[in-house]
């Protein structure tokens, strides 16, 4: 009984991590940037949904669609304004710019909606009965929708033209450009996709934790990032597996060890994996040119 419960809980949290981790992984795969502002996109998505639902009483489904579209456009804008001018100038200045964008988003949202936590009403009501157990609709919906999205994303990257362009750009930026791929458009698309996924993750996160605040993106983003690294950053199946692994590890730590130590366990797993296989579980080992 308890074991199944912890696994389901872990899957729920893990699906959210996986959705966010996909954004980190795709962006890293293409521009080699650890996009620290990604965690704050989650927060923007959460506030956007909350704002539309509570202030303008927009129906939930419409609010979610609006916030996904808004985040996608927002992610593209950030890339265009803050990251593109720096693409040629060294990774560290890009990293610091990402930290700057993260500060900016947190503070602007704090300015607009104050630092107080806001209540986010769970719009998944009722429960689903599978076999002889009851699970809340939010849990089942999170896992199901995430699986559908991940399948769709895999198809997108494997089967469509833009997906092929994404793979080509992450393989070799310059060669892709020489082959006539519009690199700028591909990167914009990647940011839009990643930010849209973050917004979906944000909605599910809010439905299970029912509270939002301007700094919520920090720890959530960091753990999703750990998940991306664990699976092998740049690899999509890796991000999904890493997310679910982190979710289940967290849920087991909470259940069997101590809820205070979850963060330590997550980062401990990260360190062990990095030391044994630095490119992550699914990552490809890049050869070193001498």
């Amino acid at each position, binding site marked *: 009984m308890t074991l199944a419960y912890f696994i389901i809980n872990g899957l729920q949290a893990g699906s959210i991590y996986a959705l966010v981790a996909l954004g980190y992984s795709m962006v890293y795969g293409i521009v080699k940037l650890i996009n*620290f502002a990604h965690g704050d996109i989650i927060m923007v998505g959460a506030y956007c949904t909350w704002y539309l639902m509570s202030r303008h009483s927009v129906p939930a489904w419409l609010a979610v669609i609006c916030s996904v579209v808004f985040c996608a456009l927002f992610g593209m804008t950030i890339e265009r304004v803050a990251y593109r*001018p*720096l693409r040629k100038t060294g990774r560290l200045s890009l990293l*610091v710019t990402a*930290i*700057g964008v993260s*500060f900016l988003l947190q503070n602007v949202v*704090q*300015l607009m909606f104050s630092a107080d936590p806001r209540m986010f009403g769970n719009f998944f009501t009722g429960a689903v009965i599978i076999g002889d157990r009851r699970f809340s609709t939010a849990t089942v919906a999170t896992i199901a929708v995430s699986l559908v999205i991940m399948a769709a994303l895999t198809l997108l990257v494997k089967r469509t033209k833009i997906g092929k362009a994404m793979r080509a750009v992450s393989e070799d930026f310059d060669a892709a450009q020489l082959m006539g791929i519009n690199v700028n458009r591909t990167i914009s698309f990647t940011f839009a996709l990643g930010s849209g996924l973050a917004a979906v993750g944000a909605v599910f996160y809010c439905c299970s934790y029912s509270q939002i605040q301007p700094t919520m993106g920090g720890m959530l983003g960091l753990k999703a990032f750990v998940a991306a690294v664990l699976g092998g950053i740049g690899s999509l199946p890796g991000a999904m597996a890493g997310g679910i692994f982190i979710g289940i590890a967290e849920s087991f730590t909470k259940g069997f060890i101590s809820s205070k130590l979850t963060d330590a366990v997550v980062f401990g797993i990260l360190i062990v994996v990095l*030391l044994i296989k630095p490119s992550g579980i699914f990552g490809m080992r890049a050869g070193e040119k001498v």
Partner: protein
Amino acid sequence: MSGLNAKTPFRYALNAASVAGLYLLLMALIRYRVLNRYQALMLIPIGFNIILAVSLNLSAGFLGQLPLGHAGFMSVGGYAAALLTMNLNMPANVELPIALVFGGFVAAGFGVLIGLPALRLKGDYLAIITLGFGEIIRVIILNLDFTGGAYGLKGIGRKTTVTWVYIFVVITLWTINALIRSRHGRAILSIREDEIAAEASGIPTTYYKVLAFSISAGFAGVAGGLYAHYLSILDPSAFGFMRSCEILVIVVLGGLGSIFGSVVSAAALTVLPEMLRGFAEYRMVIYSLLLIGVMIFKPSGLCGKYEFSLGNTLGGIQAGIRRRILKRGGGVNGSGS
């Protein structure tokens, strides 16, 4: 540049005199109320931010690695120093330096422990693993008893004075500057430029990487000790990932590999949020916009790799004056020299 370059003893005297002069100037400013009480207190955070930034610059700018867990070492040093002063019963001005040095050594020890496994990785992976270690340190402190756990460590006592901060800033700047200019410093720089070539030239790269990393961690620990005795309370949540980011921001903004840049940028970024207080809630927004703006328009940081040297500056002025005198004296002598 000029004749001053050869006169090393003269340069030492010049630097010592300017260090003492600057100290007397600061003291006079405080004494005669040019700086009010509040502004005088601001000198302390400026000081420990300088130490943090310069020490991170050693591993980020000179060694060329990117650690994201500097706040972890700061917290280790801070807790070690604070626990020592709380258990020693000596006059404040005796126990503070002892505690700071102790905190520095404990943090440097952690630097060796973490550096040995972590420095096998490179680039972004090193950044991630140090981030992981930094978070683990924070969670462990949160769950230990003798550190006060989530309530924080209280009643450390305000022992940090402007004088002590000034002394330790000077020690930090002198040590790191001397290290960079030594044989060991050249080994560290060669690892930054090309690790494989350095290894092929017989430089023990692992040894120098761990050395630079742990010295960097040690000074972060000293800064942590100053921080602890400035606030008189330590709270683990103050040493999260955000703090590491803030230190990295100072270093990159000042210019990677420029000690002078780190000093200027640490002072500027400490004072800036206070100066923007007039804009009330907009200040952090302005701060982050400035940060993004500087990075977009000057990605190498405010000072690039520029280093300030009193001797060179004076030498440059002297050479300029000499050139002008020669020019005025007519072409007879001027063309000959």
